[in-house]
């Protein structure tokens, strides 16, 4: 384990729709003996709604500058936050003029380029490592799991940390917990539809339906994922999607940290497994 402490960037849904992701993230890192110190007074990364890259860079210069003062590298469990923080980090590090322009807005945006930004999947598999995690595994989750990656993990190339077409980081964690990875290649990197949920629900639901049915047809007991927007679409909106298409899916959706937490022997309540919308009891029942 290379680092014992990270600056934790929870992201806006961490206190609401994705509170189980926040809970399981904290529980897993505590169990691993790695401290998470919240990026103090962090602000929103800009999500997918702030489309102007320059505003995104300025918003995240503040987050990066705070982490820099804390002397820590950032870890985030959200794929969109990761993408925005990471691309801002690259742009600011590589462009002195941009750094100066951002700094001229406010002193709190003075960032010197001393921070690395990582997604939780990257930290778990590449920083901590499968071997080190293996030593902490206490239980086996005997479930069939569809690892769903969505966007911003394998693409775009400038910030990607896994293969764009055949990503594998989450597969390795699923295998680590003793679960079976179901064949799920076609839909595992497709978008969940989340960015269009409020403006073109018809398209968003169709995208999510494909991901959910893809997992179901592959024989999965649950989906594992690593992004709160995907979580909202596939879990919290699942009953709406079932209603809209007149279908039954009933697919539990777990954050990868919840699944890993079960294998690390962490209590399911502490992992927020009672907060997921689609009941997770069947998955908890497969822990041996």
């Amino acid at each position: 384990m290379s680092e014992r402490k990270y600056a934790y960037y929870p992201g806006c849904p961490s206190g609401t729709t994705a509170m189980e992701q926040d809970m399981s993230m904290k529980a897993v890192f505590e169990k691993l003996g790695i401290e998470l110190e919240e990026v103090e007074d962090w602000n929103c990364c800009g999500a997918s709604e702030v489309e102007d890259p320059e505003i995104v860079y300025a918003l995240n210069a503040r987050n990066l500058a705070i982490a820099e003062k804390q002397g820590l590298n950032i870890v985030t469990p959200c794929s969109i936050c990761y993408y925005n923080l990471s691309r801002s980090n690259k742009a600011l590090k590589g462009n002195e003029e941009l750094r100066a322009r951002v700094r001229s807005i406010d002193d709190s945006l003075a960032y010197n380029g001393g921070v690395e930004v990582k997604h939780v999947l990257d930290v778990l598999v590449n920083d901590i490592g499968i071997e080190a995690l293996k030593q902490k595994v206490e239980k086996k989750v005997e479930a069939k799991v569809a690892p769903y990656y969505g966007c911003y993990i394998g693409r775009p190339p400038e910030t990607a940390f896994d293969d764009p077409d055949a990503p594998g980081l989450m597969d390795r964690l699923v295998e680590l917990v003793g679960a079976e990875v179901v064949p799920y290649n076609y839909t595992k990197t497709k978008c969940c539809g989340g960015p269009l949920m409020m403006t073109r629900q018809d398209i968003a639901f169709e995208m999510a339906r494909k991901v959910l049915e893809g997992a179901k047809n592959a024989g999965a007991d649950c989906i594992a994922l690593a992004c709160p927007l995907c979580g909202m679409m596939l879990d919290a909106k699942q009953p709406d999607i079932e209603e809209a298409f007149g279908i039954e899916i009933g697919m539990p959706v777990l954050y990868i940290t919840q699944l890993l937490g079960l294998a690390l022997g962490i209590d399911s309540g502490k992992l927020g497994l009672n907060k997921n919308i689609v009941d997770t009891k069947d998955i908890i029942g497969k822990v041996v």
Partner: protein
Amino acid sequence: MIKTWELEPNFKYEIMKEPGGEHLTSCFQCSTCTLGCPLTEIVPGYNPRKIIQMSLLGMRNEVLSNPDLWVCLICQTCTARCPQDVRIADLLGAIRRIAEREEEAGKLKIDSVRPRFDKAFMHQLEKYGRLYDFGLAKEYYTGREGSFFKGMMAMSKDYKAFGMRLFKKGKMGPKALFPEKVKDREVMKKIFEQMGAGKK
């Protein structure tokens, strides 16, 4: 049909000046972006390759008023696969921002509620520094439906069941009901005032 007498050859340079649009002229029309796009399975005729070619030709009005601009999910599949590093997802974002400015200037009517949603989202960040779901929904639905009352009716129709579901799981606590504010909100305001295209 291309009306050659209506083409605006400088349109491509207008796009390339917009952050994200810089790589437009690298496109050699191979269609890889469109073949991999998940929307083509859902939206009939959706074709980012065509939007790029129309932009290169200078079909400014046709491009800026194209409703397909507003259904891109920014999933970045096109960008990942493009052999010419056109960065299509960012490029479409650049075109969307030009269209939004045209609408603000009263020269264009955008056939999508997405600009309204994005703006309502940004207003939350400007005000609080973090996303406030209720504030966003209130502003978006009120604006979209024309009045607060109609907005709340529409929101209730879309989100009543969803909200109850979250409530039952304890996800509608104080953090959902009240805005979480960053301490230094003045800087948020300054960022939105001073950054972005045309504000150099």
